[in-house]
């Protein structure tokens, strides 16, 4: 039987043409492996395979702007399917700033090549500082410029997390972070808000795009309806207590343990996401089930319109009650 080479002659030649030595290439693989929690050898073998069959696998570029790396960390903790299988078997991850850290100039080359060819999936984490480009510079260039260039020839664009979608918390800082809705106003962007991104929603969106070649059906804010169609409130298991007018005021009272959190500032009635169904950490828990509130991190108004987070301010209350006056769908 013919021996299977880790780096085929064809791939090696191609790498050389691109100015990458074999050693450089393997170094890059090693660094990427560390980030995604893969052993070096598994990853090296996998990425080599992936690149050899690159024509079948869509290339992916992952950019980071003003971020906390929380979305990257969240993505690496996905178990079903494991992030490693998505990265190795499903996509060809060409660029990830944190992942490719071991080889700065190599990353740049891989990035340039991929951008030149076009047609890749672009994933963006973190906001774009609109007050001054210098608040986020990468390789001497502004993040905004890099983003615009990468977006121009992307096949699909996915914004992950609250910052990249609509600006999130950095939007309220002096750096005036903006999301892709403002940074790339003319582009169709698949928005996957929440702080951080839910790994299932990211994996599912990628898999959907690869399976169908299409962008999933989006709502008016660019969010896939399959994850963001319904209000948290409508699927909340505390909903019965809301209807009964039972609101938690004291976290120490076991009787109130499952009562509605609106008096503590819950934004569930205004927030569209499937958190109560999907839950987090492999189904172990989610915000409302640990006795906390929904802070509305799936909505475009997060964070500026959600603050104060833990109290019922007049405006929030008005909106929530206005919503509650609508006819109850289940009962009509």
């Amino acid at each position, binding site marked *: 039987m013919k021996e299977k080479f880790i780096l085929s002659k064809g791939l090696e030649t191609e790498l050389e043409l691109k100015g990458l030595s074999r050693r450089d290439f393997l170094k890059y693989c090693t660094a990427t492996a560390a980030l995604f929690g893969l052993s070096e050898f598994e990853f090296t073998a996998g990425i080599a395979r992936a690149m050899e069959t690159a024509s079948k696998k869509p290339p992916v570029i992952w950019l980071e702007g003003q971020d906390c790396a929380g979305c990257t960390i969240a993505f690496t*903790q996905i178990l079903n399917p494991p992030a490693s299988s998505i990265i190795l078997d499903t996509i060809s991850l060409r660029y990830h700033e944190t992942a490719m850290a071991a080889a700065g100039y190599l990353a740049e080359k891989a*990035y340039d090549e991929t951008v030149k060819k076009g047609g890749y999936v672009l994933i963006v984490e973190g906001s774009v500082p609109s007050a001054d480009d210098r608040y986020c510079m990468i390789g001497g260039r502004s993040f905004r410029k890099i983003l615009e260039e990468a977006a121009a020839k992307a096949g699909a664009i996915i914004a992950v997390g609250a910052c990249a979608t609509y600006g999130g918390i950095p939007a*309220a*800082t002096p750096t005036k972070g903006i999301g892709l809705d403002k940074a790339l106003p003319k582009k169709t962007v698949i928005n996957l808000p929440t702080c951080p991104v839910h790994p299932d929603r990211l994996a599912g969106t990628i898999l959907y795009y690869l399976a169908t070649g299409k962008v999933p059906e989006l709502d008016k804010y660019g969010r896939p309806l399959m994850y963001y169609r319904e209000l948290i409130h409508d699927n909340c298991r505390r909903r019965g207590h809301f209807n009964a007018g039972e609101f938690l005021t004291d976290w120490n009272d076991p009787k109130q343990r499952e009562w509605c959190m609106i008096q503590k500032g819950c934004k569930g009635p205004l927030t569209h996401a499937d958190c109560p169904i999907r839950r987090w950490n492999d189904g172990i*828990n989610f*915000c409302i089930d640990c006795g906390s509130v929904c802070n509305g991190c799936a909505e475009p108004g997060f964070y500026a319109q959600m603050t104060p987070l*833990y*109290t019922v301010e007049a405006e929030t209350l008005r909106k929530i009650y206005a919503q509650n006056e609508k006819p109850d769908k289940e009962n009509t």
Partner: protein
Amino acid sequence: MAKKITIDPVTRIEGHLKIEIEIEDGKVKDAWSSGTMARGFEALLTGKDPRDAPYVTSRFCGVCFSVHQMASARALDAAFGAKVPWGGTLIRNLVMGAEYIYDHVIHFYQLSALDYIDIMAIADYSGKDKDLLAVKDKIVSLVKSRDTFPLTPRYEPDEFSVKDPEIVTTAVKHYIDALKMNAKARNMGAIWGGRTPHYQNIVVGGVTSYPDINQVARFRTMLDEQKKFVEEVYIPDVLAFGTGPLWPLATMGVGGGHYNYLSYGAFEKDSAGKDLLFPPGVITGLNPADIRIDKFDPEKITESVKYAWYKEKVPVHPYNGEQIFNLDKKGAYSFVKAPRYDGNPMEVGPLARMIISKNKDILGLVEKGAKPGAVARHASRAIETKLVVDACYNWLDQLQAEMTKPGFKIHDTEHWNPPYSGMGVGFFEPPRGALGHWIKIKDHKIENYQAVVPSTWNASPRCENGVRGQYEESLIGVPVPDPENPINVVRVIRSFDPCLACAIHIIDPQTNEVRKFIVE
């Protein structure tokens, strides 16, 4: 003679930290540490409801998540006059314990171990262990498939790299095992934390997660698995490395720095709150033969912005700190301020905590000839992971006893609403070291908010007097025989557990050539 240094401002990385060094005669002669991304969170908080702060500041970092939530909540506790019930403190400690175990283990295996092993040694494994043979088979088949090795480590192994086939093969197997343990530790924290990264349950006055007995049992079962891994895998590996092949690096004290150490103290062991798992203290100029620990005085902390991209200001206490950017400031090279204690730069983190608590295991290594430095930092991290695991059992037992008492509480409901005015500081010891949040409240809103984070202490630039920060100082004299292969520099920087990607530039004084190396 060192020539003028060309600075490439930012490299192509997810770069929050950049390190430049100058080499002469095969050794680091000078070093600069720069933070290169800013978001301005502290300014955002001004005018907000103070209760937002733990949620917002948690987003400082998604890797060492939620440690800011903890420090921020403690600052609010002080400013609101809230007394966290013991049940609330126990749950806070338990979710932070889970974060510790995840964080220290990932640091050793995923981020550091590969700097210390020659992975190709696996091919020579001759033992009979089934699991290790499987690791070997896999690698050997990869090696055989082509003329050159596919498993080249980041940098060429040097004389300190571990080459023993059994140790290396075992380490690689443990590297894979650690990944699973890591995800499980995060899930353990989510039992009360709600989710990761960024817990949801820590608020002023305590926590929101009223526990039940099943959760205690679940946490305990998951902790049992972590304990087994820490005791039977992690600690033996660190000891095998540290006292074996890396012993020369340990005795040379590579990566020592200023030998100043600071711990704020953290983790109450009992409801009296006096006895802490990690005691507070300060050491200036460590003398291992006669360790003198001064009392920690929060008033002695100041921050210098002379070399940072902020509006010029004399060094001030964090209560009076401000965050007004000046991107055009001459001489500035970092977004990181330069915190000093009594005017001195300090190292914070596991090594500082273990020396200040006079931990017998770490002092035992020092007695045998190890000097505080890169290797001692790894050892300290492993030692304190075990301390945290044991403490978690203690906290679980106390929680179980506490929650069955009538009137069990997790939150100070009386002090939930913000006072008209107040001020407070919240200290905590996250895995990476001393963390402080300072808040001033006026008219029920935040008037000023400042955080001094562990990476600010360790990665700080020079201060008013031109004294280097701890990263910078710890690189001085580090052997770099081959500028193409700065493996010792990487080892030193990684030993601090930088939670930031960092770029290292090496400038050869002879040719003024800039070579780029990246620590991921």
